[in-house]
């Protein structure tokens, strides 16, 4: 395995044919409560993986570990050769590579849709304003929100806000996108418009890690499905085999409840 020589900078050893995200025996405990009990898997570039499982099984924690919002207790996570679990991690370098979309959108309510998309490239990357604005407008058009540039988050529906949040993440030109139950807080009518946006992203070859309760969507869009329960991966596989012939009793019980 290649290791980053200096924290944060992608190791020269990483090439696109290697896994873009690699988790090795990741443990996470909050106090004495162990949420993740040894999770290992790889995500290849351009792959879309879905993490499913009952609530409280550590799915959100797992995805938050990948961009260092939550520090792990033990184990290793690497993203494009950056060791996320290194204490000397350069968080900025990591977060340029990894975008994240939240369940509650978490847009900045005091900025318009366009400003929300432009903020991070301007403040964090210090890029040229004109170039950033052109890119932001293109991204809003891409998520079908052309014409809503001047609207404040409070004036947009949940689905529209979530698409702004996706555009905001994409503005940092990430290589990996994390989606944390992004449709869970939405009205049923607006779920679809967000899922369409994610599907288009996946079809363009973006590497995506999703935590979701939308089983049909997972079946449709995922290359690989991981089922977690009580902090471990119980079962995984490509959707066709996973949904058709789950082996484990826990998986089967879960699927019978949600399908």
């Amino acid at each position, binding site marked *: 395995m290649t290791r980053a020589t200096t924290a944060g900078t992608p190791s020269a050893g990483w090439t696109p044919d290697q896994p873009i995200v690699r988790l090795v025996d990741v443990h996470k405990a909050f106090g004495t409560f162990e949420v993740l009990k040894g999770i290992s898997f790889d995500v290849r570039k351009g792959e879309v993986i879905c993490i499913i499982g009952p609530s409280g099984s550590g799915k959100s924690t797992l995805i938050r570990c990948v961009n260092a919002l939550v520090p792990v207790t033990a184990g290793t996570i690497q993203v494009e050769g950056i060791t996320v679990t290194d204490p000397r991690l350069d*968080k900025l370098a990591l*977060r340029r590579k990894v975008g994240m979309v*939240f369940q509650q959108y*978490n847009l900045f309510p005091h900025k318009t849709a366009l400003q929300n998309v432009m903020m991070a490239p301007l403040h*964090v990357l210090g890029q040229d304003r004109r170039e950033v604005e052109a890119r932001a407008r293109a991204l809003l058009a891409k998520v079908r929100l052309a014409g809503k540039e001047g609207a*404040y988050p409070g004036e947009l529906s949940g689905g529209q806000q979530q698409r702004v949040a996706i555009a905001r993440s994409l503005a940092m030109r990430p290589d990996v996108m994390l989606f944390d139950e992004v449709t869970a807080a939405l009205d049923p009518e607006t779920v679809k418009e967000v899922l369409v946006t994610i599907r288009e992203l996946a079809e363009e070859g973006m590497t995506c890690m999703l935590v979701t309760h939308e089983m049909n969507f997972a079946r449709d869009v995922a290359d690989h499905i991981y089922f977690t329960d009580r902090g471990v991966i119980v079962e995984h596989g490509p959707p066709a085999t996973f949904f058709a012939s789950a082996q484990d009793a826990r998986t089967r019980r879960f699927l019978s409840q949600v399908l």
Partner: protein
Amino acid sequence: MIEAVQAWFQRLYETTGFNFTVFYDPYDWDRYVAGLRMTLLLALSTILASLVIGAVGALVQSGPSRLLRGLVNGFVVVFRNTPPLVQIFFFYFGLGTLLPDVRTADGLRAPILNNVQWAILSLSLFAGAFNVEIFRSGIEAVPKTTIEAAEALGYTRFKAYRHVVLPLALRVCLPALNNNLINLLKTTTLAYAIAVPETLYAVKQIWSESQNVLEMMLVLLVTYAFLVGVLVWIMHRWERALRIPGYGR
């Protein structure tokens, strides 16, 4: 123009007995204007200083140092729960007399701070204590998840504060801040008690010399109604300018 106004008020006095000396006697007018100037100086300097105290205090309160947090808490609690007039006396008489004198350029001994400076200092601390609480509650009202989103976009802690937390916190606490600043403007009258020649002081001097209490009371009333009105108007303009469409309510 000015002569006409003066003549009119002089006539008003001769015909009705309403003696608005400030409007025809240049000496009284100058005293009144000087008082007004002093009130404005007190108000502006204490508003600015109390905002700084509030911001720094709120920052310290969310900081890591237990000792500093405790000190700020103590400061807030004491200054909020004691009369501002006694605070002024405590500072001006109590601490002012304990500090050593300095020699001025012409060799005279003078206190380090004069009464105006003590008034500004103690009024700023008084209003600042309220501002600390106001700012802190504003910062606490910003959802953790919003800060998390900024972090996920690569913002450092400081940048997230500057671009996300503070702009939102300011909007949350603006109504309470308005109230406190208006209150501070009213509280500047307490400087009267240590002979700071502000509006109340000047007006009282005029009425004790010219024996026109009722008239000067009216002038006083209109003056403060106007000053408070202007401040209310400015703060409301500010509040409106910062309003976020579709946010809150």
